[in-house]
């Protein structure tokens, strides 16, 4: 589905990713774990086309997508829940959801999805006419995830979806991730600090250290790996 080959990404003159290669099969859930500043968010931004790698190739469904404008990538089926939520602060909750479905034209489908999301997160329904900027941190996170779901992506990039969420909701979010992966066959690329949970839902995992992939394996093997346990699982 998605393949990164030897990608280098820079911020100005500072290199953030080194020779990064990874791939995701259609229908898979993979996770990328790594310490703060390892370059996880950078990787997602490069896939979404916001950052343009200086070197390397990115293929989506066997098509080279490097240099394609971010909005076209959304059209091709890549959606992202960015780090820091990025809610449109002056749009209401409901309008934020509309923006998620910006490229869709099936009115009916949009309404169904909206209803589905209000079912998942009743608090959003309560707050639907309130500006997104007024929501609490966790509510915003729910809104950000919902907004990405509204696009019905083929590939969903999630950057720390559980950040700031109450334990109950966190678990709920991971259920939803599994569910849409199963029911809608959405491929999922999950970046998560809560590596424990992430590896539990993921099929495979990559470990990123200082901008380099240092390990990759099946999720359950990574979970069992003592190095990983010490460094990322806090066991």
């Amino acid at each position: 589905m998605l393949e990164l080959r030897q990608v280098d990404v820079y911020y100005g003159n500072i290199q953030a990713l080194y020779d990064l290669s990874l791939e995701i099969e259609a229908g898979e859930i993979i996770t990328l774990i790594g310490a703060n500043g390892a370059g996880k968010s950078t990787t997602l931004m490069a896939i979404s086309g916001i950052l343009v790698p200086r070197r390397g190739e990115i293929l989506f469904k066997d098509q080279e997508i490097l240099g394609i404008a971010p909005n076209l990538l959304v059209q091709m089926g890549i959606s992202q829940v960015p780090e820091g939520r990025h809610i449109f602060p002056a749009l209401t909750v409901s309008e934020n959801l509309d923006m998620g479905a910006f490229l869709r034209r099936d009115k009916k489908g949009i309404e169904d999805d909206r209803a589905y999301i209000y079912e998942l997160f009743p608090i959003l329904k309560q707050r639907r006419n309130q500006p997104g900027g007024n929501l609490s941190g966790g509510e915003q996170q729910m809104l950000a995830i919902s907004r990405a779901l509204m696009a019905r992506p083929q590939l969903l990039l999630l950057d720390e979806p559980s950040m700031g969420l109450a334990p109950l909701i966190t678990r709920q979010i991971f259920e939803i991730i599994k569910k849409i992966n199963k029911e809608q066959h959405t491929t999922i690329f999950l970046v998560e600090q809560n590596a424990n949970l992430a590896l539990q839902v993921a099929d495979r995992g990559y470990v990123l250290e200082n901008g380099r992939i240092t390990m990759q394996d099946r999720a359950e093997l990574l979970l069992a790996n003592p190095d990983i346990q010490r460094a990322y699982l806090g066991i």
Partner: protein
Amino acid sequence: MSTEPILSVRGLTMEFGGIRALDKLDLQIYPGQIAALIGPNGAGKTTFFNCLTGIYMPTAGELHLSPPEQPGRRLNGLKPNQVTEAGLARTFQNIRLFPGMTVLENVMIGRHCRTKAKIFGAILRNPGTRKEEKETVDISMALLAKVGLADVADEFARNLPYGAQRRLEIARALATEPLLLLLDEPAAGMNPQETQNLTSLIRNIRDEGLSILLIEHDMKLVMSLSDYIFVVDYGRKIAEGTSEEVRINPVVIKAYLGEEVEYA
């Protein structure tokens, strides 16, 4: 604990238009305590901090801070900077550093309310000012060392990774010499390893005599650190007690923790 509470809040209510984010909240924090405030998303925790620190004007309620030398200082109606001067310092849920300033400068800003150099002092650079300036740098560097950021002191704050930014916010808040430190989700965006480091950092800070009130969704951190926990939901306090008491409280489990909790 039998001493006077360092912070006491009575009947705190905050309304936004029709939404009641806080509803007659009462709570006391005693010196030397690490207290935690937990609750579902949108329960009003951050709003509580905002009311305490003068960023929002509460609809009703009494806020008192009791520094040893000036017991019962009323916080209502103070401006944010006066609250900080009175001895309350905070971090923000959405990090708010001074991104275009260096790490060291960020901490030095925290010293602002504890120093006094005026314009003329700054221009003339008299010995008093120079001494004060040196102290500011020394104290700030010491704080950076404490949170493990001394070697990036000259980096721009915006270039730090997320976790480091959170620690920098703590150092900056400490620089204001607070009596009570308010931390809003300090562990958000940290991996378990980093969270462990944070845990010991917070404990160290307490051991130096500060009181701490923290908001956090990472139950492992909350349970292992807190001396006392307040649980809020819909702006109301639904439970309080030690971690053991709270953990098994069915109301808390239902509203917040969910079933099958297993936290060390």
